[in-house]
C-alpha cells in the first residue's frame, strides 16, 4: 500500500524541524490511526518505507502505545475513561450498558460497524467524570468529548449517532445546579453538559434566558447549538 497523500504531506511539512525522519514515527502512526481507526500492517509497512525504518521497529513502537490499534475499530471509536474519578462516576455501568446493548465486548466492533468501545486511562477530564471521547475516523477525523455521562444519556447519544452521524455528538445539557458560593447577586448556576461543567450566570432578556459561561466557551448558543439552547431554556423555566 502507498502511504496516503495526506500523511505524506503531514510528514513533508514537518520533516525540516527534526534531525532525522524517525522522529516523525509516532505522529505519522497517529495520522494512520486517525484515518483508518487502526494501524494495519500495510499502513505500518508504508510508514516504515516512508521513514526508512525497519518494519519490525515500527511494529515494536506500535505495540507500545495504547492509542495505536492493531485491530479494526468501528466508525466511531469510543475511549471511555475508567480511572478513579470516572469509575466513581459510573464507568462500569456505562460499559456494561454498551456490551449488553450491542452484544460485544470492549475492543470489538458492533455488528453495524458503528462503534468500538475501549476502556482507557485518565483523559485529563476528571472534573467531567465519567468522561469519554468519541473519535470519528477518516480524512475529516474529529474527536468529540462526551462526558458527565449517565446511562440514559449515553444510550441516547449512541442511538442518535448511529442514525445521524457525527452531528449528533453536539454538546447536550446534562443538568443545571446552583453554583456553590455564588460570588454576587447575579443568578449563578453550575451548568453541566456533555462537554464540560461551567460556572455561569443567567440573565433574562426578551423572554429568554441568556447564559454567560465563565470559561467563554459556549459562544452564541442560539446560533451554534440551538438544541442545547432550547434544553437550557426548558431547564431554567422548569
Amino acid at each position: 500500500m502507498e502511504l496516503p497523500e495526506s500523511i505524506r504531506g503531514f510528514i513533508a511539512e514537518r520533516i525540516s524541524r527534526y534531525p532525522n525522519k524517525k522522529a516523525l514515527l509516532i505522529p505519522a502512526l497517529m495520522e494512520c490511526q486517525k484515518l483508518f481507526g487502526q494501524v494495519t500492517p500495510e499502513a505500518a509497512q508504508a510508514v516504515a518505507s516512508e521513514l526508512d525504518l525497519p518494519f519490525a521497529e515500527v511494529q515494536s513502537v506500535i505495540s507500545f502505545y495504547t492509542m495505536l490499534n492493531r485491530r479494526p475499530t468501528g466508525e466511531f471509536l469510543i475511549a471511555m475513561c475508567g480511572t478513579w474519578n470516572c469509575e466513581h462516576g459510573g464507568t462500569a455501568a456505562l460499559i456494561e450498558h454498551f456490551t449488553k446493548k450491542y452484544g460485544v465486548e470492549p475492543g470489538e466492533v458492533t455488528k453495524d460497524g458503528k462503534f468500538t468501545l475501549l476502556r482507557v486511562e485518565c483523559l485529563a477530564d476528571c472534573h467531567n467524570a465519567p468522561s469519554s471521547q468519541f473519535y470519528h475516523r477518516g480524512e475529516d477525523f474529529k474527536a468529540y468529548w462526551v462526558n458527565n455521562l449517565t446511562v440514559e444519556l449515553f444510550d441516547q447519544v449512541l442511538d442518535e449517532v448511529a442514525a445521524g452521524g457525527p452531528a449528533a455528538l453536539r454538546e447536550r445539557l446534562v443538568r443545571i445546579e446552583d453554583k456553590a458560593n455564588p460570588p454576587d447577586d447575579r443568578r449563578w448556576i453550575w451548568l453541566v453538559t456533555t462537554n464540560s461543567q461551567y460556572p455561569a450566570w443567567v440573565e433574562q432578556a426578551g423572554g429568554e434566558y441568556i447564559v454567560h459561561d465563565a470559561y467563554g466557551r459556549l459562544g452564541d448558543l442560539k446560533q451554534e447549538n440551538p438544541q442545547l439552547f432550547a434544553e437550557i431554556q426548558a431547564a431554567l423555566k422548569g
Partner: protein
Amino acid sequence: MAKGNPILQNGVISEWITPVTTLNNELGIRSLADYKAKARYIPEGSPGGYRSAEKVYKDIDAETIIEQVKAAGIRGKGGAGFPAGLKWSFVPKNHPGPKYLAINADEGEPGTFKDRFILEDCPHRLIEGAMIACKAFGAHDAFCYIRGEFYDAIAILDRAVKEAYAAGILGDKPFGVDYPMHFTVHTGAGAYICGEETSMLSSIMGERGHPRMKPPFPAVEGLWRKPTIINNVETIATVPAVFDAGPDWFTRRGTEKSPGIKLVSVSGCVRNPGWWEVEYGVPISTIIDELAGGLKPGRKLKAVIPGGSSCPLLQPAFADTPFDYESVMKAGSMLGSAAMIVLDDTVDIVKVMHNFSHFYAHESCGKCTPCREGTRWMLMIHERILAGGGSPADLELLKDIVNGIEAKSFCPLGDAAAWPVKSAVNRYAEDYERYFKAAQAEIESTGNPLAEAG
C-alpha cells in the same frame, strides 16, 4: 493581597481566571489578534500579549533572563517543583548546539487537568514562554509533546504556531531580531510513562517510551544527545509574566520557599469540580470549600490526595495544611501536579487503590522488574480482596511489595505506584480490615471446603 489567599481580588471573575494563561477577564484567547489586544500578564496589568518576548528578544541577555526567573522563584509545575531558572543554568554554555526545549504536555497523572486549558484557551502564552526560555539557554527549537488524546489542544496550538510564524514572531527573525526560533507541536499516542521526562525524549525520537538512565541528565544530553530542557506547560506559561510584572510580583505571593501561583485541578467528591489558580500556601480546605464548592451535603471528608494519584493520601486532620511543596511534604504527602482528588466518607479506599493499581499496572513500561511485576501483584491482590478472598496477611504482603518497588525501580513511576498504596495500608487499614472480616465471616458461615476435603 494577603499571603495565602486564592486569587479572588477581581470578584468571581478571577476565581476561575487563570492568570498564567490569560491574566485577563476574558478566557478563550486563541487567536494572535486577541492575544495581542487583550491578554494581560497579571490581572491588574495592561493588555498586550507578546510584549514580554519582544522585550526579552530585543533587550535582555541570556544570563539576565535566568537571573530574573530565579529571582521570581518559579518552580516546575509538572510534579517535582524543581526551580526552573536553576534547571536552565545547567545547560552547558559553551556547547555548540543545537540545544532544545521540550515542553511536557503529556498531562497523564490521574486527577490532573490544567495544562489542557492553557493549550486550548491561551496557546500564545505558551509560545511566548517557550521563546523566552529558549533564549535563556541558547536553544532555537522548542518541541511541545502533547498527549495524543488532546486533539483539540493539538489543533488549537498548531493554528497558533502557524499564526505566530506568519506574523514573524516565530521564524528566522522574531521581532526583527537575529535569533531564529522554531516551535513544533509533537503528538504522543497514549502512554502515561511518556510524561516522565526521559521517556518523553525517547518518544519524541520515535521510540518506545522507555525511560533512560540519568546521568547524563537531559540538560547535558537529551534529544538526539544534545542539551535539552524539559519543562511542564504551566511552568513555561508562567515565564512571560516575570518580564512584565517583575519577579517581585511572584515573590510577594505564596510562601518563601514556594513563591507565586499554581493552577490546581480539583476532582472527586466536591460539588463544583474544576481548576483554579491559587497562591501557594492557601489551606487545602479553602480550595475544597471555597473554590470547589465543598463536599456534597451530609458528607464528611475521608481523604485528600493533594497532587494526583501518585501521592500519598492525607487524612482529614491535615485538611488545613497550606498548599505549598514544603507543608504538604511535612504533612506526609506531595504537592505533585496539584491535582487534588477529594474523597468523602462514602468512598471505599480499597476500591480506590484497586483502581490506581490497575492504572499503574497498565502504564508500567515494563523495563524494570520491581515495577513491572510489583504493580501487577498489587492489582491482583486488590482484585482478590475485592472478590472476598482477602486475609489480614494481605496488609503485610502489600507493604512487602511496596517495599520491593519503592526506591528500587528504574524510574519514578514505580514510586508513584507504591506510595498511594503504602499510605492506604498504613492510614486506612480499617477499610481493608472490613473486607478481611467479611471474608472470615463468609468462611465461618459456609464452612471451609478445604478443611472438609482434607
